[in-house]
């Protein structure tokens, strides 16, 4: 499949816009304010962001950068105060820090749940769930309950369920996967392996991924493009195309992140 990468390494390149057909997500001048009057808190301000179909984008930022708000806007769970959000992908699906599997359902039934909610028949559902569990290398554990699985396995079931949700509606539009620090609660070894697995699954499925993280190393390893957000309110500070930079990128991004954080001192 073809991947369109927005090579936007400086403010001047923001005008380079891909053709609408290849854009999965288009945010223009998006702002979000919670509350009114003196109690108002601005979570996001003036966000312009485009994500191409099949792109892997990492949103990086310290606490309070409005990452979760941004994901909620993309998922349609909240409405922006200003600006427009347009998502042309199929139903966006979420993955959280916790696997958040339904504890009363088996692994396979958890993966089937979004398909069931979308009204798919039993046979089609089962086949699809088996395929997806195979994709995340969990064939054979479909009958297990969440508590019988390790943390890493649960998170992979959650990934399979998110993929099921992203493709639950008919049509050709590839799915959009919104990931809110999905590996943050795992131990370092499991996280390392799952990052590799996520890349493999992403390449195999062609899904668009918007991945939120605190971790520069994780962002650089996974993403094609890293977007650094400032905190309170969240704005886009800079973005880097990972392919175009060498190994010094990690230090450069870390340096900028430090600057953003230091500006909040005192």
């Amino acid at each position: 499949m073809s991947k369109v990468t927005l090579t936007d390494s400086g403010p001047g390149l923001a005008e380079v816009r891909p053709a609408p057909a290849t854009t999965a997500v288009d945010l223009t001048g998006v702002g979000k304010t919670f509350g009114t009057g003196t109690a108002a808190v601005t979570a996001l301000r003036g966000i312009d962001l485009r994500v191409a179909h099949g792109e892997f984008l990492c949103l990086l930022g310290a606490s309070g950068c409005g990452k979760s708000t941004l994901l909620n806007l993309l998922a349609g769970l909240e409405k922006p105060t200003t600006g427009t959000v347009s998502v042309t992908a199929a139903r966006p699906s979420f993955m959280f820090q916790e696997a958040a599997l339904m504890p009363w359902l088996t692994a396979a039934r958890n993966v089937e749940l979004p398909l069931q909610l979308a009204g798919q028949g039993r046979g089609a559902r089962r086949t699809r769930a088996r395929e997806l569990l195979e994709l995340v290398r969990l064939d054979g554990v479909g009958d297990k309950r969440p508590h019988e699985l390790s943390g890493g396995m649960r998170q992979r079931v959650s990934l399979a369920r998110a993929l099921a949700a992203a493709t639950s509606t008919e049509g050709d539009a590839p799915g959009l996967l919104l990931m809110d620090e999905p590996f943050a609660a795992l131990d370092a070894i499991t996280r390392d392996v799952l990052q590799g697995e996520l890349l493999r699954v992403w390449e195999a499925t062609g899904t668009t991924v918007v991945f939120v993280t605190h971790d520069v190393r994780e962002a650089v390893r996974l993403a094609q493009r890293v977007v650094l957000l400032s905190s309170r309110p969240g704005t886009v500070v800079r973005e880097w195309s990972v392919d175009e930079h060498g190994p010094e990128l990690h230090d450069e991004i870390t340096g900028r992140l430090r600057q953003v954080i230091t500006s909040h001192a005192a």
Partner: protein
Amino acid sequence: MPPELVEHRNTSTDTNTDTGTDDSARALAGLDALDTPTVNRVPWWRRASRSVLPPVVALVLIVVIWQIVWASAVTPEYKLPAPAAVWDEFLGIVADGSIWSILWTSISRAFLGFAIALVIATPLGLLVAKVPVVRSAIGPLLSGLQSLPSVAWVPAAVLWFGLTDATIYFVVLLGSVPSIANGLVAGVDQIPPILPRVGRVLGARGLASARHVLLPAALPGYLAGCKQGWAFSWRSLMAAEIIAAGPALGIGLGAYLKNGSDFNNIAAVFSAVLLILVVGIGIELLVFRPLERRVLRARGLAGA
């Protein structure tokens, strides 16, 4: 499973090198093998001996002490009967067949009352749990009713409905509805907030959300409420049957107990109390305990 037994052949051509993904698959399989929680299943006979033997031994001890106290004759015969006399009384009602009508009268009332209570309490509990106005309006009342002994309603019920079945059911319902409704409220309150959120992201709205997320997630609390509701309805039924006795009401366990007391037949009183206990414990052990065990075990909430 040792890693060398796991053969993942990668057929995807998207990946860079075949050996790389093979490594990753092996690493993953190894991690899964190391991290999977181990579940120790206790064989059923050991579980049975562990859960059945102690209460049986305790029961035998109680009967032995009872026999010793009776034999020492510190209390007059009309206050404490011999275990054998109670056994004879029991055999007597079995022999003349009256035990079946006594048991049927009480148990059928308890079951019908409990079923009606379920039908009333379930929507009531959902309303209290999900509608803030309803909760602040009748939530405290519901908790208050739970601590009010339902036997307190018997005099009023007798005045309203006379000595009829309506009196009995009224008391039983007031005993069990608050427990069941409160159990459901507690069950809904204890749902981790992430689950409804995930449900919404996966496309569950309105009724589908209630059916696929809310109700199954609240099931353990609901079941606990039902269990307590059963105990309360059985208790209220006995209170009602003892106080409200009349020809229109037939002879249930409560009336049998009352008759024993009225005729100074202490053996019949003991036999009635024991029967009430046995039925209450029996339903709990045969119906609610297995149900609860299944639900909790499926969620990994109860020890094997």
